[in-house]
């Protein structure tokens, strides 16, 4: 009897779960986002001085913190642009849908945007959803830019192959992982005049290995000798053996593209076994200052997508706070802002050419203009695009000084 009651209760609980699941999953009218973007459903194309731009972001569900930041950044730029008169007198109208971070939802939402008559797309946010949408936009040659999807496969059709065809219509405003490795090698060469370098990285971590491979390859190109490639496994706390090897070859710099907890211990132990080299890190080093002593970290440099508090950023931050009544949550808000800026800049080129929004020529003109972007100043750097439609931009170099992470320069 007891068992039967339990079974009934379980069945009941499961049914309830199913029902709520359905409730959450219905393709509900996605909420129109904050600000200017009242949903412009059914409007055929840009008429009456409007340019319709679609925005996809995961504003609910897991990782919604990224989606909201991106969307807020995008909307902030578009509002500011419209206040200044839009593009050649036309208002940019953003239609935003929540895709919940799900690839299927994202494609559905995109199709709906196409029905709404958009002429360009900003989004999506997470890699999986972005690639799913990119497959669709590629077929339609719809200009697309993502602020945050870092996987190579977003702009490349087959990321396994270096000479893969690219999705000519898809761009991004964030760096991809290997880019940071190249950047730090270049920095070591140009700013630190390094002739020798060592690396220590966590094996099996895509982020660390991606940065390390790019760093080592770039070092080869620049003539920096890589003396040690030391590895460690996830969960290791003792790096002294590896660091003793590094100390023996005494390189000019040590590149440590790992997350802050490990990096802090690596730097501490390196100093204990007598490594005097300058440490370099990637954006995983954010808040490293809490994880090693000021003396041990002194002079170390890492690159970041976005340096809070730099002069270029201060204005953005105050505008963001004024509009959303919260501090800039992370680097995705400025990246969203920059992606909207890049897209609107490209739209302007098509408008200047007098093309009709929504037509194939118009879309191609936007894509060509995006590809030709050069020297456009954003919040997170100065933009142009490489052959794979990834941004070539400066990174914010953060230097450790007296136990503080201080913005040193854009590089």
């Amino acid at each position, binding site marked *: 009897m007891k068992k039967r009651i339990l079974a009934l209760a379980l069945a009941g609980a499961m049914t309830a779960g199913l029902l709520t699941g359905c409730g959450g999953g219905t393709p509900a009218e996605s909420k129109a986002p904050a600000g200017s973007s009242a949903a412009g459903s059914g409007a055929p194309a840009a008429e009456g001085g409007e340019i319709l731009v679609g925005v996809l972001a995961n504003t609910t569900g897991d990782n919604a913190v990224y989606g909201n930041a991106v969307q807020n950044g995008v909307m902030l730029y578009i509002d500011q642009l419209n206040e200044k008169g839009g593009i050649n007198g036309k208002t940019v109208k953003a239609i935003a849908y929540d895709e919940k971070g799900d690839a299927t939802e994202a494609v559905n939402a995109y199709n709906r945007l196409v029905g709404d008559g958009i002429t360009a797309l900003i989004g999506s946010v997470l890699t999986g959803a972005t690639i799913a949408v990119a497959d669709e936009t590629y077929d339609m040659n719809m200009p697309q830019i993502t602020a945050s999807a870092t996987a190579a496969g977003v702009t490349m059709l087959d990321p396994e192959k270096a000479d893969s065809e690219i999705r000519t219509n898809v761009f991004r405003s964030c760096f991809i992982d290997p880019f940071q490795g190249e950047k730090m090698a270049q920095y070591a060469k140009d700013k630190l005049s390094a002739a020798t370098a060592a690396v220590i990285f966590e*094996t099996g971590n895509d982020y660390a290995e991606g940065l390390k491979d790019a760093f080592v390859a770039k070092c080869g190109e620049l003539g920096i000798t890589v003396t040690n490639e*030391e*590895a*460690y*496994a996830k*969960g*290791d*706390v*003792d790096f*002294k*053996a*590896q660091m*003793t*090897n590094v*100390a*023996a070859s005494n390189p000019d710099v040590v590149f440590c593209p790992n997350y802050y*907890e490990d990096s*802090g*211990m690596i730097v*501490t*132990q390196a100093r*204990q*076994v*007598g490594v005097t080299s300058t440490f370099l890190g990637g954006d995983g080093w954010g808040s490293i200052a*809490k*994880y090693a*002593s000021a003396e041990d970290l002194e002079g170390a440099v890492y690159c970041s997508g976005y340096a809070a508090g730099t002069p270029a950023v201060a204005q953005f931050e105050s505008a963001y706070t004024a509009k959303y009544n919260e501090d800039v949550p992370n680097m995705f808000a400025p990246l969203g802002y920059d992606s909207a800026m890049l897209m609107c800049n490209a739209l302007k080129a098509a408008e200047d050419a007098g093309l009709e929004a929504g037509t194939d020529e118009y879309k191609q003109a936007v894509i060509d203009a995006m590809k030709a972007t050069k020297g456009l100043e954003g919040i997170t750097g100065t933009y142009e695009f490489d052959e794979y439609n990834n941004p070539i931009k400066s990174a914010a170099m953060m230097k450790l000084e007296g136990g503080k992470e201080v913005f040193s320069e854009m590089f």
Partner: protein
Amino acid sequence: MFSTIVSQVINGLQSGSIYALVALGYSMVYGIILLLNFAHGDIIMVGAYVVWYSMSNLGLHPVVSMLLAIIACTLLGMLIEKLAYTPLRSAPRLSLLITAIGVSFLLENGFQLIFGAGAQTVPTLVSGPSLSLGSVTVSFPAMLTLVVSILSMAALTFLVQKTKLGKAMRAVSEDMGAAQLMGISLNRTISFTFAVGSALAGIGSVLYLCAYPQASPTMGSMLGLKAFVAAVLGGIGSIPGAMVGGFAIGLAEALVSAAGLSVWKDGVVFAILIVVLLVKPTGLLGKPIVEKV
């Protein structure tokens, strides 16, 4: 080249002495009640959190914090013994072993619940000049670790060999029933063994923090497992064996990493365990187990 090898050996001895201190706790407890106390590694974790909490949140002096940590570990070890193991003293060994694993999970997940899953940074505990011997640099924490652990081991050997309590411990481990008939208080002796083992774990946790200044809820599990391997390698139940085993495991790890095979480090440690169990299950210094009829 030579100086690198010497430095690597010192690295190995530093981590090895921490393993040895932890292995001693394993070995002593096993010696006396035939229990593999898998919660032992987590006692170190608790010690690390005590140091972190009393320094970062209470602002206590490092030395006070370290003493607090050692006291907390000692008390915790005795508490675990009283609450979890004493009621099971006549139960099958397997129940005890499973209880030990349960206590370990309780500690790990409890601390994760209270303090979060991330690592907490412990401020610098000790600082001092490093020693330069030619081209070899020995850091102050490394020297301190070696000196403190050797002193602790010497004190332990004295305690076990020369004092009355030590004699009682040896007697209980040899024959629990006979020891009891001779008027040795079983509960007191077992409690005392746990206290000593846990105090060594507390010292181990302080030394651990000198070298790796982060406390995280799962830090004890791998450390505990490796110390267990050290205890088995040395011969579980044997005090000198645990010391030898600890240093051997530390050296093996350092040399494997030095050879550029750091990814295989854990693999090598557990391969040692397998080889020991296959070839010489009693370990380097263990006594062969004779089943009493």
